[in-house]
Structure formats: structure tokens, C-alpha cells
């Protein structure tokens, strides 16, 4: 209206000065389209990821039980957990399981990836074969490992006794010194294929020219691995380590099917402890157990993100 008035009163010369650009410019229209296209993804992320995540955190500060929304109790659940003997053990065991099993997965996964990246006979078959533990349903894998570790009739004890390496029965899952290592072995076996395949994919993208140049310069195999291979697949190692750590920290079936957290909390981890909390229908406490691992994982995420950013 102002423009129109100016037009009529001040004449065509001044109207040129007062003409405004149309609001819906091409770039604005493009931006709007972009936002509209992103909205569904944001909505899905908010609904399926952010909402449950923050809701679990909120619940952990309440005395919520099944059928009763409960009240805000501040840090009461966390104080209770801190005084609960099993919680500290679960925290330590969870960190041990993550660090040791992921360390072993890295070694096994990388070694096999390097091997499968070489020109071997039946390489394709081996590459497919290596995926089997990962493709197998978790409950089948861990129940099988449980059977292998059985004190009477278990494969490992049979091998040891039949070969006269050890005369007596070893209760692999029933004593503190061997229970966690047994669970770690099973967890590594189930999880290393993901590492291996990821590393293999990364290795195939390392330019061969670099190796050839290094060879020409007289670099030995170890030097080529250390100065070319590792830096080239560093990103993949970081991302795989991050994902695997999160999965391992939240893994339940490996412990539940093999030891139920026993003997004597020797293999108790946070997800199993949360499950016990759920059995008592105390959702606030169970959520607090689950939330307790978040700071450790968050630190890990920030470290990995920082390292990736640095590159």
C-alpha cells in the first residue's frame, strides 16, 4: 500500500526507489523447500530418538513404578544405586567388558581384514564365511558358547581332559577368574566380523601407489602398515570402535544367556542390572541404571568426534 501511495503521489521517478524485492525470491523458495524436505526426518528423529532418550533421563529422576507415574525424587535413585553393591560391580564390569572385548575385536578384526585383503585362494568364500558369527542370531550363538563352557560335558573341558592337559573339571562360567574371560571370548567371537568387514572395505580404498612408493623407498612391511595402512583407515577404526563400544555397553543377551550376571556379580553389567530393576517394576531405578552409562558413552562420543574433527 505504501508503495502504491508513493507511486501515485511522487510519480514514477520515486516509485523506482520504493520498489521492493518480492518476498518469495528464488533462493527463499529453495530454502523453504529444503526445510520442508528435512522436516519429516527431524520429526522421525525427534519422535524415535530424542523423545525416548530424554524421557528415560526424566524417568530416572522419578520414583516411577509400573502403573504409577511417580514423583520427582532428584538424585534419590542414583544415591540408592551408588549404595547398592551390585551397581558398582556392574559399572566396573561394563567398562571392563567394553574395553577388553573391543580391544580384542580390533586386533582380531584388523588381523583378519589384512589377511583377507591379500590375494588368497578362495578369498571370496572366506570373506563370506567370516560374517557367519555376526549373521547368527545372538541367542543361538551365546547358548552354544554356554554349552561349550559347561563344566560337565562341555567341549572345552572334554578337550582338556581327553588330551590330558588338565585332569579336573573347570567350571568356566561358575568361578570369578574365568567367568568374565569366557563371556568376553563369546562376545568377541560374535562381534569381530563387523570390525573385520568394515576394515576390509576401508583397506580396499587405500591407494596401492602409496605402498609401491613406500616399497621403492625401502619401507618394510611393518613400516608400511604403521605409516600407510593405519593412518588411511583411522577414520573407520574410530567410527567402528565408537559403534561397537555403544553396542557392547548395552549388550544384554551375551551375559544373560551365559551367566545371568553371576557368579557373585562377576559378570554383572548395567543392562542386566536394569533388567532386574524392571522385574521389580521399579521403572525409575531401572532407568537410572541405564542412564548411568550415558556419561561414559558421551565422553567416548566426544573424544571420537574430536579426533574425527581434527582430521
Amino acid at each position: 500500500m505504501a508503495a502504491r501511495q508513493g507511486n501515485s503521489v511522487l510519480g514514477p521517478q520515486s516509485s523506482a526507489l520504493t520498489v521492493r524485492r518480492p518476498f518469495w525470491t528464488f533462493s527463499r523458495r529453495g530454502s523453504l523447500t529444503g526445510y520442508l524436505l528435512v522436516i519429516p526426518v527431524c520429526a522421525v528423529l525427534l519422535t524415535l530418538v530424542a523423545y525416548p532418550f530424554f524421557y528415560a533421563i526424566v524417568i530416572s529422576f522419578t520414583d516411577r513404578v509400573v502403573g504409577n507415574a511417580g514423583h520427582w525424587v532428584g538424585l534419590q535413585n542414583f544415591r540408592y544405586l551408588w549404595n547398592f553393591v551390585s551397581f558398582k560391580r556392574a559399572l566396573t564390569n561394563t567398562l571392563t567388558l567394553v574395553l577388553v572385548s573391543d580391544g580384542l575385536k580390533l586386533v582380531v578384526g584388523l588381523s583378519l581384514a589384512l589377511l583377507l585383503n591379500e590375494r588368497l585362494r578362495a578369498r571370496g568364500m572366506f570373506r563370506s564365511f567370516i560374517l557367519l558369527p555376526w549373521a547368527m542370531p545372538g541367542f543361538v550363538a551365546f547358548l552354544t558358547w554356554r554349552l561349550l563352557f559347561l563344566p560337565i560335558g562341555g567341549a572345552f573341558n572334554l578337550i582338556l581332559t581327553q588330551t590330558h592337559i588338565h585332569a579336573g573339571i573347570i567350571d568356566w562360567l561358575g568361578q570369578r577368574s574365568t567367568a568374565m574371560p569366557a563371556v568376553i571370548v563369546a562376545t568377541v567371537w560374535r562381534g569381530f566380523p563387523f570390525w573385520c568387514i568394515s576394515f576390509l572395505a576401508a583397506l580396499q580404498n587405500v591407494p596401492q601407489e602409496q605402498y609401491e612408493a613406500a616399497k621403492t623407498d625401502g619401507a618394510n612391511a611393518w613400516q608400511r602398515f604403521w605409516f600407510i595402512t593405519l593412518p588411511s583407515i583411522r577414520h573407520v577404526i574410530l567410527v567402528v570402535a565408537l559403534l561397537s563400544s555403544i553396542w557392547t555397553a548395552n549388550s544384554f543377551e551375551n551375559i544373560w544367556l551365559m551367566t545371568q550376571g553371576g557368579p557373585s556379580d562377576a559378570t554383572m553389567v548395567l543392562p542386566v542390572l536394569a533388567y532386574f530393576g524392571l522385574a521389580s517394576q521399579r521403572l525409575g531405578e531401572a532407568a537410572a541404571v541405564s542412564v548411568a552409562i550415558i556419561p561414559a558413552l558421551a565422553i567416548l562420543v566426544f573424544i571420537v568426534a574430536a579426533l574425527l574433527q581434527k582430521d
Partner: protein
Amino acid sequence: MSGTARVSRRHFLGGIAGTAAAAILAACGGSSATNTPNAGTGSTGSAAPTAAAAAATSAPVATTAASGSTPASTAAPAVISSTGKMTYWGGLIFSDDANNLQVQTIKDWGTQNKINIDVVMINQNETNQKVAAAVTSNTMPDALDMGLDLLLLLSNQKQLLPLDDTYAKIGKAHGGWLKAVDTAVDPKLFGGTRNGIPYGMGGNVLFRRTDVLKKAGFNDAPKTWTELSDMSEKVTKPPLYGMAFAISNVGDGNDMVYIMQSWGGRVADDQGKACTIKSPETKAFLQWVTDEYKKGQFPPGVTTWDGAGDNNAYQSGQAVFIKNTGSVTIWMRANDKDLLNNTLYSAMPRGPKMLVSPSSPVIRGVPKTSKNPDAAKALLEYLANKEFTQKYYPLAIYGPVLQDETTYDLFKTDPVHIGLADLVVNGTAPAFPDVSNTAYADFNNNYIVPKMIQRVVIDHYDLDKAIDEAQKSGDAIYAKYK
């Protein structure tokens, strides 16, 4: 022109908004419309139970009439008010035949009453967790099987429909409820109402290998736990072990609680308010059980056994004594007649202070969120009919809950069922001598007693330190319920 265009766009957008709002309102209206019949059902609440009651009684009557024991009703079967679709969560037990019979009977009843019933059988070790998720997400079934612990937890949260009328009706129709059953679901423990219908009494019976024991000169069942451990010591020769009792973080591991109670140890005080596990009696029990463990009388692996650990040990011939609800018998009948013939059953032995041999009912309940409460009640009433229970008891190893059921031949001829019937009469109430409440259930859900034993035999704690730790955990748990 542009002004006109702007106005028309606004109109257009307004029109869209209006249409959307109308659609949302319509949807809300639709849901309230669909609620209306429900509300109607609710408003005809007084009529609905009458119809349901008529239908419920008509169904069993029709069944018993067919068997000729009761005069047939001449009235046409009443229509049970329902949405036409129901969900039932059954408790999975070791006997496939019993599970199948239950599913089929429920489905047949549904067909007879024009209700499509989805029967989902759930591993009883996971019912608590599934129910927790279902209550939270408002997806509870119309009826479900559960144990006493879950009944207690759900009753405390007012999640179950009172079933006093159905309970009374079933009792009246079948000669009354057995005293132990009646006491176990006493309204005083569950907020003043009967919130569940018992359909079997479960409990452990002591299994013993007669062939092994006779060779060692033992012909009778052990009367005390120490007598049992003495007998066990004489017959344990790896890979055969005397005391195949779980000490792991599973339900079977909690059987150690009642053995401790038979020594005089208590989880809590008489009011059920404060944990009192630290006592000389508990220490005496802990001394006994850990000594026996150290002597090698328990099979290796008992500290991490799952719920089938004792089954596997006995069935593979590695155990002389086990405590079991009867699932092993089902397996032996089908797979190992020799072992079956070499097995005898007896009640739990006494401790130095008392006999604690808990029997506990399995229960059917109706969640308050059920969309078919009348049909669910009618179904529970139907499932108490003689024709079904006479077929069900031999397959599912449970003791009787109703007076009339005690007359079934099975409870006079079959050794396991005789033991279970005896347990119902002479067994102790759940949690006895402690108070069965949510704190007690929480205490057991955290496996404090088996863990206390594990601390000594696995971590080599001294007895006092292990008991102190159990007391600390128990204090933390009981403090939550004050």
C-alpha cells in the same frame, strides 16, 4: 489483483487449516463415537455382569450337562458382552501338552461365544518384564496368568480388576477353595479385594534317586536338611552329585531363602518393614550350605545355572537330590522310564528351627484396562470347570486349588500329584515365616540370598562379611517401601 490473490491464498490456506481441523475433530469425534458403545457398555454395567454371569454359568453347565453330572440349562446361552476380540497371556510351562490344551480350550470357548481370542504363551520368567512394558504402554491383555509376586505388585498399583464375585462363584460351584489357596490370595494382602483366580498350586517336591540311595543303605526320604547332606556326602561321586540345588541369580536360586528360613533366619521383621537377615540363625545356615558346597556336594555350575539347571542335572543322571515342581517328571515319563522308576518324591526336609515348604498358587487375573472385563471374567469362570481341570492337572504338574479337585483320582494315585496335594495341605504359606509384601518380592528379585552364598563360595568372603553385605542390600531395599 495481487491483493485479491493474497486474500484468496489466505482463504485457501485457511480452508486447508479448517479442513484439517475438521478432520482432527472428526477423528476425535470418531474415537469418542467408538467410545460411546464402550461407554454404553460401561453404562449398562449393571446389565453386563448379569449377562456375563449368565453366560459364564451357562458354559460350564453346558459342559457338565454333557457329561451328565448336572442338569442342562434350558435357557438359551446368554451373549457375553465383548468387543469380539480378546487377548490372553498364558504362562508357558514345561509341558507342551498342558500348554496346548490351555490354548485350545480358551480358543474353543472364544469360538463358542463368538469371540476371537488371541492366546499368547509367555515364558513365566519374563512375565514381570513384559507386564511392566505392557502397563506402561497401555497394551495389557484382557486376562493373564501370573505368579503371586506379580499379583502383589499389580494389586499394589491398582492394575487389576477385583474378582471377588467370580472367586466366590467358582468356590461355591466346586465345594469351596482349599484353605492354603484361600489364605494365599487373602484380600488383606492385596488391598482389600480378591484380584486373582488361582488355578493350581505349585511348589517344590524333593526328588531322590532310590537306586543310588538304596545301594548306600538309605531307604527313606531325609527328614531334615542335615540328614539330606549326610546322605548326599555318602553318595556323591563325580560326576554324580548329591545336592543339585541352584545357587544362581534365577528363581530357583531363591529356594535357598526358605531353607534359610527353616534354620530360623529371617529376611525381615514380623511387620515386614525392616530387613533382619543378619542373625545367628542366618549364619548357621550359611555355614552349613557353604560347607557342603566346599565338600563338593553341589554339581559344578550351580552358581550360574539357569532355571533348567536342576532338570538337566537330574535328567542326565548327575544328581541324586533335586527340588523341582514336577517338570522333570513330565520329561521322564516321555523319555526315561528307568529314571522315572528309580525316582521317589517327598516333602521338603525340616531345618533346625522349623519346616518351611512353601506352596504358591498360579493365578489368572484381569487387568483393569481390559476392554472385555465381563468376557474375561466369564472365561476365568469357565476355566475352572471340571472337564477342563481333570484333563489339565495330569499334564500340568500342579496341586489342587478347590475342594472338589482333591477327589480326582490323580491326587490319590500319581506320586507327584500326591506330593503336590500334600504340599497344599501341609505346606507353608508363601514367604512364611516372613511377610509377603512388595519389599520381600523386591528382595528376592535381587537374589540377595543366593548372592550371599556366592560371596562365600566364589569370592571367599568370610560369613560375617557376606551377611553384612546382604543386610546392607536388604536395608536399601526395605527402606524404599517404608
